[in-house]
């Protein structure tokens, strides 16, 4: 397992991708139908975009980060023509990153039909250029950034699903890679546990501040990240769910806290703060659903995300493949087409946590090598983005040079 290597796509900024997808980006909801139709029947094309007409720094940074993500080879931006977010600005940043890009406003090219036709033509030319520019290079564990998320948690998630991801994260960090976990609102009750994992005094300070912000957020909006299905699955309190979710982080020291669309400055284990900052419009909502958290993780450059679900979930992801892990054998049997990894075997004594983590690492390497994950096979490419306020990093940080 340790010596696995595979062929990746080298980008101008030195990062390496495990896929060579194209993106269609819409800059307002009004352009989303045309964007989806342009991407229809194009298996290598994913669609992302922002529904708001009034723009938002967080959303703009995230779209730039995904448009210049290592798994992306080229981008087409489609706007309606009235909105604040400018398709040409996104295309400009993508061009600077060494990728082919085009943009247009629907209002300048007739209506739905002519815009779809134009989009399809532009996409074909972007695809040819992306193919010409693609440089294949060997890739190994040290080139990987992997995110982790959980959703639809039950009593098995904290016992098997999340611990096996945590153990795989320990291995990835030992092999020089980067591991990112988030869901700070699912660390409520664990302030001391979290801070004690800090790699340095400055990391401890960042972790404490991030925890305190999340705790005051939850108190202010009276929203804790625990839902009816969690209770029915045996989880009683947010503290209990928190400990189970935190198991995804493994046992390595935490290097520090990343903000959305910020890349880890060096390898190791990192916490992503996806919680909104306090703002004149109050906090806004965090974690409206699993896909939102997954997009925040991918914005850090994660080429892949491990998704733990005890009760079962049928989502996939745009831009980076999702590997679905369940600690519940019944869920694995009921949703075999959707579930990549059965961690329930740890609970039934068929294999140890350590053995399971080696098997999971092998699956990660297979998917990194180009094998489709279960959600990819089913054609899943979910994307979600809404308004959120985060102060930093500066806007330029989204424009990766």
């Amino acid at each position, binding site marked *: 397992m340790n010596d696995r290597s595979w062929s990746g796509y080298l980008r101008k900024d030195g990062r390496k991708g495990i896929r060579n997808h194209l993106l269609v980006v819409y800059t307002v909801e009004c352009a989303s139908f045309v964007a989806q139709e342009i991407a229809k029947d194009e298996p290598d094309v994913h669609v992302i975009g922002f529904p708001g007409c009034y723009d938002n720094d967080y959303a703009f940074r995230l779209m730039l980060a995904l448009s210049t993500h290592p798994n992306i080879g080229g981008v087409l931006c489609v706007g309606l023509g009235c909105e604040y977010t400018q398709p040409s600005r996104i295309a400009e940043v993508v061009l600077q990153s060494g990728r082919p890009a085009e943009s247009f406003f629907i209002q300048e090219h007739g209506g739905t039909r002519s815009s779809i036709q134009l989009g399809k033509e532009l996409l074909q030319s972007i695809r040819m250029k992306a193919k010409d520019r693609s440089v294949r290079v060997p890739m190994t564990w040290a080139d990987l950034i992997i995110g982790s998320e959980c959703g639809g948690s*039950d*009593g*098995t998630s*904290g*016992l098997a699903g999340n611990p096996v991801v945590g153990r795989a994260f320990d291995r990835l960090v030992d092999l020089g890679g980067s591991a990112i976990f988030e869901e700070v609102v699912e660390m*409520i*009750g*664990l302030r001391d*546990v979290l801070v004690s994992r800090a790699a340095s005094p400055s990391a401890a300070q960042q972790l404490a501040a991030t925890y305190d912000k999340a*705790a005051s957020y*939850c108190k202010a909006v*009276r929203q*804790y990240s*625990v*839902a*009816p*299905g*969690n*209770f*029915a*699955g*045996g*989880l*009683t*309190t*947010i*503290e*209990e769910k928190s*400990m*189970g979710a935190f198991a995804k982080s493994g046992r390595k020291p935490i290097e520090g806290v990343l903000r959305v669309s910020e890349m880890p400055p060096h390898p190791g284990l990192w916490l992503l703060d996806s919680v909104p900052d306090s703002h004149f419009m109050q906090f806004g909502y965090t974690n409206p659903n699993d896909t939102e958290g997954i997009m925040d993780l991918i914005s850090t450059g994660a080429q892949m995300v491990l998704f733990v679900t*005890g009760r079962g979930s049928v989502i996939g992801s745009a831009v980076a493949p999702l590997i679905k892990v369940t600690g*519940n054998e*019944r869920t694995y049997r009921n949703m075999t087409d959707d579930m990549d990894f059965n961690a329930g075997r740890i*609970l*039934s004594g068929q294999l140890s946590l350590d053995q399971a983590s080696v098997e999971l690492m092998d699956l990660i390497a297979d998917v990194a090598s180009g094998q489709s994950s279960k959600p990819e096979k089913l054609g899943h490419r979910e994307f979600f983005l809404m308004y959120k306020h985060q102060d930093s990093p500066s806007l330029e940080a989204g424009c990766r040079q």
Partner: protein
Amino acid sequence: MNTNPACTAFQIHASDNVATLLCEASEGSAVAIAGSSNEIALAAREKVGMGHKIALNRIDEGKPIYKYGVAIGMAIRQIEPGDWVHLHNCRSNFDERSGSLDLYTGVPKGAENE
């Protein structure tokens, strides 16, 4: 009590006073405790579903419920060994809403619960 345990519950940390059921235990059935515990078995005093928690010791009202070695909530009534530990007898120290949910489905009860 059936002395041949049909079901196992997992105790994560030696200081935990609850264990997580790996299958469904019926009332009166024996449950084997795996993980950190020295205890061999105890009897479920009521039906406890898979993924749910069973009490390993008596827990007095107002005392913490420990899982993973940390307090995950507080007993809101006295809990006996073998009891199902859930929303009816355990409350979050953070989430005020946790006492107002349906015991079996977790769905908010009544219109006042937003």
